[in-house]
């Protein structure tokens, strides 16, 4: 049954007509065209579908659309206009942290939340924070390097 779900998406109030049990990743990609969010495993194991729910990293492939009624959802698209995004994107570029790119939006979203909450994370903190984000290309070293680089360049971005 299709219902109307109202929530805040990337800073603006929105409404969507969908069944409550629709997976959030499908709602965001299909109803709003936010294709920066990827589906990898579909079981919450890989982090490619990472969003921020009320500011906290969450997995949109194992959330129902109905669960975000009245909540705030931020996707990679919603971060694009922030200074933190530019720093992270440049750092991922400089460190060679992107290969096929499929995991990258999820990596950026969780790194964004990490650097917001922890201005100078050490390597172990970065690895722990990103333990739920899988990358099958780079072997992680360059991703960790990219986040370390972004932390050094963060300035007043967060």
């Amino acid at each position, binding site marked *: *049954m299709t*219902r109307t779900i109202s929530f805040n998406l990337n800073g603006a109030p929105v409404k969507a007509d969908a*069944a*409550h*049990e*629709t*997976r959030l990743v499908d709602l965001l990609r299909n109803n709003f065209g936010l294709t920066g969010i990827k589906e990898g495993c*579909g*079981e*919450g*194991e890989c*982090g490619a579908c*990472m969003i921020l*729910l009320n500011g*906290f*990293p*969450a*997995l949109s*492939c*194992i*959330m*129902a659309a*109905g*669960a975000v*009624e009245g909540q705030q959802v931020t996707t990679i698209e919603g971060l694009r206009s922030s200074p933190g995004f530019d720093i992270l994107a440049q750092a991922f570029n400089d460190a060679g942290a992107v290969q096929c790119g499929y995991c990258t939006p999820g990596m950026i979203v*969780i790194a964004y939340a990490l650097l917001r909450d922890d201005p100078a994370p050490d390597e172990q903190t970065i690895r*722990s*924070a990103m*333990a*739920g*984000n899988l990358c099958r290309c780079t072997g992680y070293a360059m991703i960790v390097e990219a986040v370390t680089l972004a932390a050094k360049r963060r300035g007043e971005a967060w």
Partner: protein
Amino acid sequence: MVTEAVTYPTTPTEAAAVKKAGALPYAGGTDLMIHQAENIRNGQCPPMVFLGGVKAFHGITKGNNELRIGPLTTMAELAASAQIPPILSLACNAMGSPALRNIATLGGNICTASPAGDSLPALYTLDAEVKLVSPASVRRMPVHRFITGPGKTALEPDELLAAITIPVPAQELFHYRKVSPRVANAITKVSLAVSLAVDDEIVRDIGIAFGAVGPTVIRCSPIEDVCIGLPLHRLYRDRARLAAMARDSVKPIDDLRSTALYREAVAANLFAEFLETLNHPKP
């Protein structure tokens, strides 16, 4: 028939009434959405009742005799909480990944009733109880009676888990260890939780529970009975015998994650490892 108006209940009894009418209770969704994935694809998913709007299901409060945890408290909130016994924080922090812990709930972990449910061994050692509400009744029972088998609980069709309670003061010393192939997003092969209360180096109370080595969490009452009243150095001295008792008390199976033989050996080793720590008890 479940109607639009009650998809978002605000009270426990209202939520229980919607469940009774056939709706799937949605807490964090992290297991439910995977179990229902095929139904969702086929348009066959029953209606969901979203519990997030029930205020009474949130938060941690401390009473005179017990700590009350709302079932919608997330694993991340519990991992970071200074209000709860540290062993429960450690166990909740060992589950899944950071983003998963931000949405997965304690109530969901309990009601899923997986033999490998990461919060469960800690809850068993803390003598946790569950409070169940239906539109017409409230009842309480120990968590070890609530979970009746793999994926099975004593929950009636019109009931919801409304609170988790832990007696206070709880024990003061804790030991937790989870064995899994990697740090994040790995289902437990074997875990051990021990909660201990000590007076002048004598064991006053001890709870010992293993996860993922039986159809439900295995609480080792016979070993607990042996330990109570003994000085810690005796537990250390008798570690080989006690570890052998631990080995005998678990009932693991072969599955895709591990073998019964491995789990049995690791369970004994985990318990021996705990007993080793008693040689130099921390002040």
